[in-house]
């Protein structure tokens, strides 16, 4: 199942990926806590300007991986380069980070909170205040400029923190589970904002266990399960790892054409007398299959070929256990 990451690197062309400079290059990251291996050898290659998703069930090692990339904790093994720097804090001024658990000082006013987050990244306070007010106005929160964080709703506070993440105009933005806690409208706004960031050349990395967001947004994804990365690469490649599914309906129930169907094809006889077949598209493609069905008088009444979604790919790659955790939707706190 493990993917050879060398497929995704240009051999001998360090710091680039398909001709694009790298925002992040991590190799063999390992992190252990008191004998427990949280991350057991993660490789990540993220080109600049990409929207990159890190997918995985709860407890897979996503947050630990992001924290190592950001320098919050150091890996026990492996190397990381972030925006060309070996020490992430050296380029902290060019990084924005929205952690999974949102937090702001409750007594701060909104624009001060944004300015403070910018100041932590080297943006002068006066400039941060100015930009903070502009950002609040631009995002429909102008009426809350002078309000304290404690006076805001949870969703508004999250928006303020998001603006604080972007106020210093970073080249790399890292979001840890950015959609959690947001309603559908704000999730849509966040997706738009992420796309706008990427369009402006900013690299956007986010972790999620909601595959739909990654499928809509990402150029590439890494799937983390059990502290490892069984897949990293373009979304299309992930999908292609699962064969397309064929749904075939025939009048005939048997004939020579049956030899063209896989041996494990599912079969159901419908009340109308028709036969429904479901199976993975054979590696030879759809044309030989069609030819065999027509030549064998199968009596095709309907035929559909469905390409696998990222969710199916994720389930297949991350494994059934991960899929169960995903379906449960159990939070890390509960776990």
């Amino acid at each position: 199942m493990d993917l050879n990451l060398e497929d995704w690197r240009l051999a001998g062309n360090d710091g680039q990926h398909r001709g694009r400079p790298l925002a992040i290059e991590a190799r063999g990251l390992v992190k252990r806590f008191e004998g427990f291996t949280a991350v057991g050898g993660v490789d990540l290659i993220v080109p600049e300007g990409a929207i990159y998703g890190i997918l995985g069930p709860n407890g897979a090692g996503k947050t630990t991986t992001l924290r190592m990339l950001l320098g919050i904790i150091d890996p026990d093994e492996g190397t990381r380069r972030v925006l060309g720097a070996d020490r992430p804090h050296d380029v902290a001024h060019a990084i924005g980070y929205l952690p999974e658990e949102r937090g702001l000082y409750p007594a701060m006013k909104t624009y001060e909170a944004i300015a403070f987050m910018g100041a932590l990244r080297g943006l002068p306070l006066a400039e941060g205040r100015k930009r903070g007010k502009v950002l609040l106005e631009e995002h429909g929160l102008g009426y809350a400029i002078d309000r304290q964080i404690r006076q805001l709703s949870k969703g508004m506070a999250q928006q303020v923190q998001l603006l604080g993440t972007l106020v210093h105009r970073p080249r790399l933005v890292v979001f840890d589970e950015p959609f959690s806690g947001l309603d559908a409208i704000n999730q849509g706004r966040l997706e738009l904002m992420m796309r706008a960031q990427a369009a402006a050349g900013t690299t956007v990395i986010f972790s999620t266990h909601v595959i739909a967001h990654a499928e809509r947004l990402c150029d590439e994804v890494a799937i983390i399960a059990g502290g490892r990365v069984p897949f990293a690469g373009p979304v299309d490649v992930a999908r292609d790892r699962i064969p397309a599914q064929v749904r075939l309906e025939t009048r005939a129930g048997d004939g020579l054409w049956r030899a063209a169907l896989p041996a494990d094809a599912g079969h159901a006889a419908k009340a109308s007398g028709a036969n429904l077949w479901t199976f993975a598209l054979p590696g030879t493609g759809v044309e030989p299959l069609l030819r065999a069905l027509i030549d064998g008088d199968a009596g095709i009444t309907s035929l559909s070929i469905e390409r696998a979604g990222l969710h199916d790919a994720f389930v297949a790659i991350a494994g059934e256990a991960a899929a169960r955790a995903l379906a449960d939707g159990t939070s890390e706190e509960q776990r």
Partner: protein
Amino acid sequence: MSSATPRQGRLSTVAAAMVIARRDFLAILFARSFISFLLAPVMMVGVTLLAGSIGHHGNAGDASSNVGIAMRGADVDAMLAARGALAPRMGDALPELVVVKRLAAGEAFDPRAALKSQQVVLAAVLTGSPAAPILTGPVARIAAWQGPISMVAARALGRGPTAYPDVTLARTVTSAADTSEGRTVTAEAAQTLMFLLTMLLAGMVLSNLVEEKGNKIIEILAAAIPMDAVFLGKLFAMLAISLVGISVWALAGGLIAVSIGGAMPSLPAPAVGWGLFFVLGVVYFSMAYLVLGSIFLAIGSMAATVRDVQTLSMPVTMSQVLVFFFASYALAHPGGIAETVAMWFPLTSPFTMLAHAATSPALLPHAVALAWQVLCVAILVRAGATLFRRRVMHSGPASVGGKRRWFRRAKA
């Protein structure tokens, strides 16, 4: 939003620390609870005055220098007259004579019973006659009064001098013995003041990271700047708050001193002079605060809740008392190994060196000590930050802001 190259650059550790310090300083300064903080010493002084007042009332009936006298009437009168004549020359050396009973001729009197009596509280009882006085009481008391009572009795008998030549007093500023002893008093006073201030103020650092952990802000800070800078910034902020508090209290104390006009006790001048001593006092207080604070901050950072911090307060306070005791012991044993150890041990070094400034004019040791203390602060901050990153910043939301354990197992 444009993603143009940012104007800003990487923050140095000190610059990053100042961002934290500024936020914390202003947040505390403009918090309502800061007023309570400023009033805390006023309450302390109030409690002290109240306790002193109670003690004073308790001592009002104290008869620690009262000697009861029970003799024949004429003898009593003669003894009282003799004491009155000697009192202007001997002052406090003479005990107060309280008439217990004027005895008739041949009347018996039990001095031990009189001492046990609750009606008149006496330190000793004088019986017999001026020619053969008997002083009954605890040995420590009667031994001290044996001489003075003997002189009073001699005077009562009409013996001894009746006129006394005046002794002219030729004053000097001080003597060698006086200077040394006086400076030690100044050193003790300075150490005690510094101990009280650090005890009052350094404990606040314990709970300093609880807010960040509770508000989940710690991860944002840790991602943006080195944890050393977070620790250092918090220490700077708390030190600045402490200095603001001390300034306010000193101002209030000065106003009180001026208003009561010269009634304040004065201390002998320290060896380095008052000006430099004051500067060194501020510097050594800052170093003591930073050294203690860096340890307390690291300990407090392991606490997940305010309750944990409260539990930690007692051992932390006791450790401060131990530090003070050791520094006091070193002061009482100058030139010994205890003083040398106290000068080098990071926690006692500021206290010992401040005392040293009071008793010795040499300045070079202070330069060395301050360099050493700065190094110790840097090491302690780095160690605390590293410990925090390793033990607390594990993974998952629960490990940062959780409330289950100080040292919790990671969940990825």
